């Protein structure tokens, strides 16, 4: 009935391990993850607090809960299940059929993505970059460490860093474009993925994803990410969870210092060369609101009316101050837009136009939005 059976990858060893885990959970006065005094540490390298004498750690537990079948809720219908089961797994589970070209992707990108992610996925204004050049070359930057201010860091964009292409397809389909998620069709998603592979200068099965490339499900499943093997521990397959456990059991892997309390350093723990590092160049202090500790009454704002300038800064400046939309002082652009009357400008803004989502994605009433438009137009005069 459900597609979920496709996700099953039967493994005798894993089955054994997990049935043990679960029976421990429902068993008598025992809980999984009880490795405090056992040879096997918890999966995160830490400890857990098994149920003992009716308590877990310091908390009392109502053990009457155990073994009770409560059965709230109901079985979801097929349509309900399908509506939410939109995840796409690395083996292609959940990936629908469809196709899209780099060319189409470029056009959709320009209309729906460029306003935030910039030309060719270059990012900007804090929005993530989608590409920085050739993925295979940039993958080699991952050993870079910025030990000095003028050094280049590692490039962590989709092409150079992400281990699986399925993540990209799934994320775009479910969570992009950011102000209107879940609005792209499967074909549009294939097209955008093709475009992003293109700007990362990637190949599929030896073939360059060039400007003519058309991506479909079959080709998608052949994508090998340059940094596929760049992650530890290995979480795939029946041994995945045990690999994780082994990795975090060793503090050396992640900088953890396991020291007996009686043996921790208490005196003369530093070298004579120890030096103090201060905040350089003022550090980061662009805090909102500014740090203040006074116990006083808030200053009278005087006018508590809607602040169009503030609303502009919070909702519009990210595009209109960065050249994506016309800037407030771009007299020519605003003259052109207001030529057909300000009502037309209001309507375009409220309904969205080109790359601009309705009201720029802002949560403003129509009246508030119009006063922001008025503010913009007045600035251009």
């Amino acid at each position, binding site marked *: 009935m459900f597609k979920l059976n496709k996700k099953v990858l039967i493994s005798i060893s894993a089955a054994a391990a997990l049935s043990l885990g679960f029976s421990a959970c429902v068993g008598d006065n025992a809980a999984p993850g009880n490795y405090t005094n056992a040879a096997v540490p918890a*999966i995160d390298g830490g400890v857990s607090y098994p149920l003992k004498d009716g308590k877990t750690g310091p908390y009392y537990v109502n053990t009457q809960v155990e*073994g009770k079948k409560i059965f709230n809720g109901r079985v979801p219908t097929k349509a309900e299940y399908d509506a939410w089961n939109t995840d796409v797994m690395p083996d292609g589970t959940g990936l629908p059929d469809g196709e899209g070209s780099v060319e189409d992707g470029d056009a959709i990108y320009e209309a729906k993505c460029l306003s935030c992610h910039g030309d060719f996925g270059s990012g900007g204004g*804090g929005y993530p970059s989608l590409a920085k050049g050739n993925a295979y070359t940039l993958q080699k930057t991952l050993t870079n460490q910025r030990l000095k201010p003028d050094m280049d860091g590692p490039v962590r964009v989709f092409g150079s860093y992400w281990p699986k292409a399925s993540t990209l397809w799934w994320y775009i389909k479910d969570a992009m474009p950011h102000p209107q998620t879940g609005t792209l069709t499967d074909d549009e998603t294939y097209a955008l993925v093709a475009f992003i592979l293109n700007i990362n200068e990637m190949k599929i099965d030896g073939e360059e994803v060039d400007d003519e490339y058309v991506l479909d499900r079959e080709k998608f499943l052949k994508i090998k990410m340059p940094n596929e093997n760049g992650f530890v521990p290995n979480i795939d397959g029946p041994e995945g969870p045990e690999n994780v456990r082994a990795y975090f059991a060793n503090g050396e892997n992640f900088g953890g210092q396991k020291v007996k309390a009686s043996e*921790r350093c208490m005196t003369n723990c*530093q070298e004579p060369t120890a030096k103090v590092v201060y*905040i350089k160049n003022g550090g980061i202090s662009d805090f909102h609101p500014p740090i203040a500790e*006074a116990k006083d009454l808030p200053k009278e704002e005087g006018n508590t009316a809607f602040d169009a300038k503030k609303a502009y800064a919070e909702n519009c400046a990210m595009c209109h101050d960065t050249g994506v939309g016309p800037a407030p002082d771009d007299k020519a652009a605003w003259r052109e837009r207001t030529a057909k009357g300000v009502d037309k400008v209001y309507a375009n803004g409220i309904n969205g136009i080109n790359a601009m989502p309705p009201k720029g994605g802002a949560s403003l009433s129509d009246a508030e939005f119009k006063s922001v438009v008025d503010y913009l137009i007045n600035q251009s005069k």
Partner: protein
Amino acid sequence: MKNKDSLEDSLSNEAKLDRRDFFRKTAVLSATALAGTSIFAADDPAITEPTEWGTKWGDPVTKNLYGVPSAYEHNVTRRYTKLLASGNYRASIAVSPIQDLSGIITPNGLFFSRCHGGVAHIDPNEHRLMITGLVEKPIVLTMKQLKRYPSVTRTHFIECPANGGQEWRGPQYNSLQFAKGFMSCAEWTGVYVKTILEDLGIKPEARWMLAEGGDSSKMGRTLPMEKVLDDAMIVWAQNGEALRPEQGYPIRLLVPGWEGNLCVKWLRRLDFAAEPWYCKEETSKYTVLKPTGKAIQHFYANEVNSTVTSPSPEIDWSDLEDGAVVEIEGLAWSGMGTITGVDLSFDGGKNYIEAKLKGLVLPKCWTRWSYMHTYKKGDELFLTSRAMDDAGYVQPTVDQETLAVGVEAVYHRNAVETWKVEKDGKITHVEVRSQLDRKPNKELEIEGKA
């Protein structure tokens, strides 16, 4: 020492001297005389003058049926900075004013707020939780049905693993709120995921659980079954009331001690499978890139950590007088277990003494610690705290941590932190580098950010 009569004389002679000054004067006279200090302070009008609130009606109980803080506390707020926004403030964080907090509970309005597609405002009547995949019986629950499961209440911190993550290459924030405020701690009520799974039955081949949110960002994360069957919870209440929208109203996943990002807000779906999902937030982000070029993935627990909360850059010692006896206070926490002790250094980590734990000491929870100090005006101090937990870990020095994972990790920074107490009592955030038993590594003599 003056006798009673002469004190009464001075009282009658000093018409302005009020009762409070009497006791102050007595105290001063009882102590060794302090050169240059006037014992005859001016009257305090806060005492001698009638107050408005002491003479007139206050508000009726009908006002503010949901209470709000005193207007005088308006500076105690979450704060944000553009640096921590992924383009806009709907994919961003507002950090908690831990310099202003007391005890181990963060008030709901001050709990740090991190979201990826804005704060969703969900109608609880229209919200469902669906549990599917490798379970014997998939289900969908209304919020009312979910809350009929037997509840558990636990106090845990939630910490964004990027807490302190801007400071791998040297200190950046002269602020406790921004240096350590990507976390908060609350009492949570909900149901263990394992309690619901007892009903559904889990298939033996299930090794991983996907938790997915119903907000526009569809936040998803993969968890191993071991944690799901240990202490993972679906929570609907925080500090005795419904979750705030910023915390995932009506329900969120709570994964005690682990990365805050795993505590998926606005939770709507749990799915079980044999293989992990590789969600966007566990590949592109929340991975720790090491100097080898390999990145740690599925780095679950927030490791043992601590900070001095008083003094702080925000609330310093510039008003302390010489000889003042003052409490140095702080927080310690570990996502791997329970805090077993905290050491405090006055010289930036060269020598340590044991501080005292205070109040409740709970697993995967903020723990308060304290040390009584006699302040000497003009002293320069380097206050460094170092916590230990029952998993056997002690907080690393900055050198130990960077030698192991480099400076590009972004996440999971838990090295000790140092406040410098300047001669005038002001507090400056610094780092003290180099450690015995470690060879000085020229390459890791890191300068602050340009």
